[in-house]
């Protein structure tokens, strides 16, 4: 069966549903988990009203974004630990979370992805989130979509 579950999160309540389900699943089937968080920040050459954003500012924003991701991943790690499930975390800087998720699944040899149908930018219940949709289209491994 599935031995390695990839759980991408953006920290949203719906993503947490997938996180909890994934951990429960891994516990029951004795699989291990890789948690994944993607963040994106400004490029260093972005201009604001004629002012160039300094490298230092970009670095600081990156650092804080990574901190937020680490917080969500730590929360997942804690849940995994209390369920006695092996856990690893990946905090990725990319503007394309869907590519990041598919690539991480491939690189880490995950055999299933547990994710929410929407994340933070989810608006309607009737349409699927864009990240989930792209992951479903590109993933080579089965995707379990939570709603």
């Amino acid at each position, binding site marked *: 069966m599935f031995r390695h579950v990839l759980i991408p999160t953006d920290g949203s309540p719906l993503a947490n549903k997938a996180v909890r389900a994934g951990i429960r699943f891994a516990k029951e089937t004795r699989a291990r988990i890789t948690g994944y968080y993607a963040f994106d920040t400004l490029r260093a050459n972005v201009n604001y009203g004629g002012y160039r954003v300094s490298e230092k500012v970009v670095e600081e924003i990156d650092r804080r974004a990574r901190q937020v991701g680490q917080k969500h991943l730590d929360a997942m790690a804690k849940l995994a630990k209390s369920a006695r499930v092996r856990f690893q975390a990946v905090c990725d800087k990319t503007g394309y979370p869907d590519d990041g998720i598919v690539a991480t699944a491939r690189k880490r040899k995950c055999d299933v992805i547990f994710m929410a149908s929407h994340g933070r930018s989810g608006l309607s219940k009737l349409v699927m989130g864009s990240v989930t949709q792209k992951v*479903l*289209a590109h993933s080579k491994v089965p995707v379990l979509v939570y709603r």
Partner: protein
Amino acid sequence: MYKKILVPTDGSRLSDRAVKEATLLAQALDAKLILFHAFPSIQQPIYAEGSSALLVSRQRARKAAAARARRVLTAAAKKAEAAGVATNKDYAACASPHDGIVAAAQKHRCDLIVMASHARRGLSRFLLGSETQAVVSRARVPVLVVR
């Protein structure tokens, strides 16, 4: 975890893969499979140019569809039962497959749907089948999309 898994199948190769994955999952979780086949309630055009009469009565068309449904479901059930997984079979005529699938999941109180990313019309690997997409958007329970 999941105790009753709905597996829609149309007898295509890709839906055979979904049956296979669902069987493995059911083994690991000690769950039961509900195999389901949906067929359109209207089997043929009411009239075609040059001929106003139905060549085959609606009743006969429906009978043929039900026979095909039983054949597809029996074949799928055989594979699952060979692996020691308990199954139930159900089929329904419905306006569109996704309506039938979502309704069947509710009727049988399934807690997971396992389905292929495409079915008969699966051409592109980079798109998600329309039925699968509709099921993921409308189902109340999580959906495992198998590729």
